[in-house]
């Protein structure tokens, strides 16, 4: 079932620039979030996606607006790529009621039904069965949309991963499983957690077509995602896409990174997807240094605006504490 992915179509220049912009936005947004964390403006857990941006952006660009997206607690990148405005995400991380989950969720629980973005799930693998159920409805109601579910390689060790893969294949539902293999389940390396580390091979046990791709290379991710999503959309069957990637930052803000060598991180930074893609665009003369600088300035403004928005946001009154336990509209 494992197969290499070939380039499907020539690059669309405008789209490529938008994608560069998105990756740079995600990177800078998270750097700012880390800063705001050290200032105690953001609390709780904060899991940064820095280094893995090519995966969220490369996959999301191939989705349609009516497709469902589910993600993990390391989901700022997916949420931004899906089009949730940075203002609402930053406000959510501040815990303000203007946040995309009204401040109730925080960094790990970003939701926006208008973007069909269903979390933000912080129990590793907890959202895979949900993704299968959402795809089951597409099948039952003969809809044309698909469901895209991001998770880490840590999730692939959970029982729910295997239950979800089996159900998806058994029921033949249109779901794309995107495994972001960043080599560490929190602080434990994949060689200590998986007997079979070529994770795409797990698809074969369920008759699920699968492939793996260099998740640090945006264009390869895009090609792989375009191909995988095309297959899910046309076959109405599940697909497992493994994106091999790397997280440059610690697991969370509490992580002293005792489990990996700094040299290893530095080595991986050579494959940073953003400079790689910038270099490509420059070489092909699809962008100029000046334009990249302009992107940076524009992003800086946008991020500052999101901080200002979050700062200006208001706290939900304590007398509303017990809202959203049961539905207010009972019908």
């Amino acid at each position, binding site marked *: 079932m494992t197969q290499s992915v070939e380039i499907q179509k020539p690059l669309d220049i405008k789209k490529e620039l938008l994608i560069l912009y998105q990756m740079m936005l995600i990177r800078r947004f998270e750097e700012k979030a880390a800063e705001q964390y050290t200032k105690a403006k953001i609390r709780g857990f904060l899991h940064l996606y820095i280094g893995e941006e090519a995966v969220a952006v490369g996959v999301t660009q191939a989705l349609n607006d009516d497709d*469902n997206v589910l993600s993990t607690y390391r989901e700022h990148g997916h949420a931004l790529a899906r089009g949730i405005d940075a203002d609402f995400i930053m406000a959510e991380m501040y815990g303000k009621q203007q946040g995309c989950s009204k401040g109730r*969720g925080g960094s790990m629980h970003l939701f926006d*039904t208008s973007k069909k973005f269903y979390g933000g*799930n912080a129990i590793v693998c907890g959202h895979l069965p*949900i993704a*299968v159920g959402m795809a089951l409805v597409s099948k039952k109601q003969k809809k044309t949309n698909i469901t895209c579910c991001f998770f880490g390689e840590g999730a692939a060790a959970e029982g729910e991963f295997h*239950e979800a893969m089996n159900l998806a294949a058994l029921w033949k539902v249109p779901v794309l499983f995107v495994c972001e293999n960043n080599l560490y389940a929190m602080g434990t390396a994949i060689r200590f957690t998986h007997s079979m580390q070529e994770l795409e091979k797990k698809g074969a046990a369920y008759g699920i077509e699968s492939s793996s791709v260099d998740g640090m290379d945006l264009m390869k991710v895009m090609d792989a995602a375009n191909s995988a999503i095309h297959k899910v959309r046309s076959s109405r069957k599940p697909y497992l896409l493994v994106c091999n990637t790397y997280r440059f930052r610690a697991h969370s803000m509490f992580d002293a990174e005792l489990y990996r060598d700094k040299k290893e991180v530095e080595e991986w930074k050579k494959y940073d997807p953003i400079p790689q893609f910038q270099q490509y665009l420059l070489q092909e003369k699809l962008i100029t240094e000046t334009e990249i600088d302009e992107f940076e300035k524009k992003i800086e403004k946008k991020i500052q605006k999101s901080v200002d928005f979050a700062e200006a946001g208001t706290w939900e009154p304590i007398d509303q504490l017990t809202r959203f336990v*049961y*539905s207010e*509209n009972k019908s």
Partner: protein
Amino acid sequence: MKNNAAKINSTYREALKQGLREALQNDERVFLMGEDVGRYGGAFAVSKDLLQEFGEERIMDVPLSESGFVGAGIGAALAGMKPIVEVMTVNFSLLAMDQIVNNAATLLHMSGGQLNVPIVIRMGCGIGKQLAAQHSHSWEPFYAHIPGLIVLSVGTHEDARGMLLTALKSPDPVLIFEYTSMLNSEREIAADAGAVDISKAKVLKEGKDISIITYGTGVYKCLEAAAELATIGIDTEVLDLRVLRPLDEETFLASVAKTHRVLIVEDAWRSVSISSEISSRIMEKAFYELDAPVQRLCGVEVPIPYPLHLEDAAIPQKNDIVNAVKKMMSHD
């Protein structure tokens, strides 16, 4: 409510089944999925013949993947359908507890009110079939502990016929506890029985001397005990809680104010149970109404043993209820 009160005899199983059929007939978005619900006809034959009637799109057999299919039910609910998920027995629901507690009960809240999870999860449960320690759990208190869930206990045939229909109207997740030891029991119900309220407890027998508060298999046991107590002049009020979360305080506090004595009866273990919650609420809100301390008859704190005599001894029986009431009344 009904003037032309035509009655029919129905087993608890048949009442559940007719409720299911009506639910499936009423709404195209409703489907049933669970282990052995289709070709086998349901582990307890509740869904027998429904596969033939409704087809395999709506009566779905699933693999033994409790977390997987309960989670899929949650996903289906998020995407706009009305899944009824049957977990064969409550004992296996522990394998799906992550989905029920971390997803079904929290998604509305974590999303700031954006996501509804209109799933109904039915579970066979109860003690009394000599099924030993892993198949005789009373997990009502576990689930009744969780904000965001609605927890129903089907103690009567009317509720077996009607609770599911109302549960399917709820935008929030509903767990329905169905008692397998009652499946074959036959009772009279209204010929046109249907949807019932799922927000209130219910006084099933009015009385003035003492209130017995119970749920599940305790209901008929307590009614039988009340009938026996009537023969010796003790006028007992029997209250079926029905809804274990959110609790209908108003109804049981009104009963306390009327009788001034309370016995709570349940199969679940005594510590951190439904009865401990009821008892503390009475203490907090009706202390001065009491003429005697609240008493409880609960499951003995032991994994349920296999032999019948030990199993019987592990949970309250009719005679225990009669004796407890007599003892409470003798203090006057």
